[in-house]
């Protein structure tokens, strides 16, 4: 069986997998990182989004062997060692951007990528477009959009809220 070695949340990890093992299966079942969810398993919902080499991808649509040698960040890797939440997690909490929480790990991972790739500002329209690959059955998205807009200045080191009302 193929052997994969990767860095997950800053720590080296390796495991023996089948070629068909999905990245999300490696994370959840072999490495015990169950924060990453599987909502649809058909590449639609985004509950499984993680960062692979800095890119937000659907871990249900990537083979574990394709991630060999990669740096993977999951929802478990965001908070600081002392438990301080990542600004995006903090803003999701602050703005009630979750109800059942099932979509939240994928939403947060996508949202961080979205904010990070828009250093010059992020409009509400851009946020809504940016969430096209993440489905939420509970919130109606409104508070998710607010949370992301509120996280933008925090992630870009600015005090003022982003102009994304």
């Amino acid at each position, binding site marked *: 069986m193929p052997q994969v070695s990767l860095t997950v949340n800053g720590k080296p990890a390796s495991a023996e997998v089948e070629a068909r093992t*999905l990245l999300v299966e490696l994370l959840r079942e072999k490495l015990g990182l169950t924060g990453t969810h599987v909502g649809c398993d058909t590449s639609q919902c985004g509950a499984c989004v993680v960062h692979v080499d800095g890119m937000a991808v659907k871990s249900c649509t990537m083979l574990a062997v394709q991630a060999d040698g990669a740096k993977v960040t999951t929802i478990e890797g965001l908070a600081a060692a002392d438990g301080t939440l990542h600004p995006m997690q903090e803003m999701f909490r602050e703005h009630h951007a979750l109800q059942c929480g099932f979509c939240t790990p994928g939403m947060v991972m996508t949202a961080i990528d979205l904010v990070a790739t828009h250093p010059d500002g992020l409009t509400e329209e851009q946020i809504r477009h940016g969430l096209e690959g993440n489905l939420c059955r509970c919130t109606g998205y409104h508070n998710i959009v607010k949370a992301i807009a509120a996280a933008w200045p925090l992630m870009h080191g600015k005090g003022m809220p982003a102009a994304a009302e």
Partner: protein
Amino acid sequence: MYDFAYQKPASIADAAKLLADPEAKALAGGMTLIPVLKQRLNKPATVVDLSKLGLAGITVSGGMVAIGAMTTHVTVARSAEVKKAIPALASLAANIGDRAVRYRGTIGGSLANNDPTADYPAAVLALGATIKTNRRSIDADSYFQGMFATALEPGEIITAVEFPVPEKAAYVKFPNPASRYAMVGVFVAKGPKGVRVAVTGAGQNGVHRHTAFEQALTKSWSAAALDGIATPSAGLNSDIHGSAEYRAHLVGVMAKRAVAAAG
């Protein structure tokens, strides 16, 4: 998903050798292949990952934009060179699927797959691009051969796509609100290959040229030139998302918007 052997060859020659086996299947971004494997619609003995062949990258020179087969949609969308040379192509790539799909999906995979509702086929056909493979060059007009069908031979590998830089071009799609694939997408271009209009999403046989629109736009490049030219609904898709008549109407609307956007 059935299990398979996984190979990641380091040269095109080695990849071609592995893909000579009819039971082997190439893997690019996996955005189509992995869902297909999950549904057990395909059962390859070997999956050949093309990611280590050095096929990713963009070069612009001599009025030509060459995009390596393994170049992801996000790379094309963000490329300053593509934005400058063929902005319509960069914006097409920026609106494929969603962010996560764009980080993994590739131009080569999209063209090899030739989904009848995919976006890139419209750009390739309207711009008169050339598909480069490990065996030959295939011009756009002979490459697309119907729904999910292309001129590729078994085991043939797309290595790059060469787009001649147009004078004007634009792509407008009416996305399916769930998948973002094109319900109808129209790419219009005026350039070294003349005036060409390609329609994706609408036709039962996938991407095709719209000769009536091409003739009208050759005479006069303006949205108004398309007034009164009806698109026949025969041969167009009819499904839960829209009837053939609805799609025929959308073809005209998208084409006019595209001409207006191209300026």
